[in-house]
């Protein structure tokens, strides 16, 4: 297979990364810890009460955690996954590695990796936003770009300089 980034079937997956735009690493990890603390399984109302955050604010965090494969949500029940258990026992640095392994082959990151490889030079913000806009629509492209920068920095997959607006892909580390 070649040119996977332009495959029609990938439009939706790149768009899915939008769920990562409104949440932070700390919120995701805090949620996993909270579900674990009540035994690894709870309904949304219970979690909402336990963490003293209303369901409106919790919703996007749950969606993102599910997107990352850290929880499953079924009939309103939230259950942490094996992957979450790995995260819970990991230290700060291992957590970054686990998140890197989850996100590095997501379509949104693969798109950026592909672009970086074919251009062989740092990518300009506008160039990436444009490519994202083709897949997620222009009104979400900025959010997805910011999410790629935030999560990409955390997972040590990308470098971004907000002064020059240049994005570089980091060499994979072990």
């Amino acid at each position, binding site marked *: 297979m070649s040119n996977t980034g332009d495959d029609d079937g990938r439009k939706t997956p790149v768009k899915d990364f939008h769920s990562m735009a409104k949440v932070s690493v*700390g919120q995701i*990890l*805090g949620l996993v810890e909270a579900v674990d603390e009540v035994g690894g399984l709870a309904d949304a109302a219970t979690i909402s009460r336990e*963490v*003293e955050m209303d369901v409106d604010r919790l919703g996007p965090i749950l969606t993102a955690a599910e997107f990352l494969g850290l929880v499953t949500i079924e009939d309103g029940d939230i259950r942490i996954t094996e992957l979450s258990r790995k995260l819970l026992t990991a230290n700060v640095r291992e957590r970054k590695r686990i998140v890197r392994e989850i996100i590095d082959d997501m379509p949104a990151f693969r798109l950026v990796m592909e672009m970086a490889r074919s251009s062989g030079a740092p990518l300009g913000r506008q160039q990436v936003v444009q490519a994202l806009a083709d897949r997620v629509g222009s009104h979400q492209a900025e959010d997805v770009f910011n999410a790629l920068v935030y999560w990409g920095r*955390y*997972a040590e997959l990308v470098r971004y*300089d*907000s002064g020059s607006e240049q994005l570089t892909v980091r060499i994979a580390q072990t």
Partner: protein
Amino acid sequence: MEPSLLEVKDVLKSYFENGKEFKVLDLIRFELAERDFVCVVGPSGCGKSTLLRIIVGLEPPTSGQVLFEGSPIRADNPQVAMVFQSFALFPWLTVTQNVELGLEAQGIPPEGRHARARKFIDAVGLTGFENAFPRELSGGMKQRVGLARALAIEPLLLCMDEPFSSLDPLTAQNLRDEILQLWANPDLPPKAVLMVTHSIEEAVYLADRVIVLSSRPGRMVAELEIDLPRPRNRKEPEFYGWVDEIYSLIV
């Protein structure tokens, strides 16, 4: 005998307005030794921030004394670092520059500063954000910068003033756990932690010892050893027993 790391001796603080005395702290007395993680808990306005400012030498007590390693505390003591509720970051500086700031003040040469900053940025999980500006960070990340900046001066004593109270509950809990991870590593500074908070649950979750203050003027109501094993579970009856006990002491 070696002096304690920190001795707070009968500290009393009053502010005076139009000749009228406004008492904020009354006879605070406790000590901190190496490997102590102590939380001071008390209601809002009871004088917790004032107490920390006195302890780090930013403000004199009206009477009483604060000794650090046996000598009166000075505000420029590089063995004491502070983390603030408001993060206190410079918005026009990057993460690395914010962390290096305190090192520059100590006269550490540039290469030494970079290496030190890199080490503590990594320890708090901020590698990847070195050249980010505060506005590009989530709240939890901002407080990690505050923590890295404090740790980078390799202090013996780390003071924290409500470091989690401007974070959402999930981010706060995650950061509490990661701070305990750092604390469990004896190769990293500091040697002791003194944190103030209005959250009883937070104090019981984190501390080996909790000092309970009354409402203003803050007076020591109790000093309790929290002997719960770690990691602590906030859902267990033993945990709740401590929270309830402290609650009943304050109200």
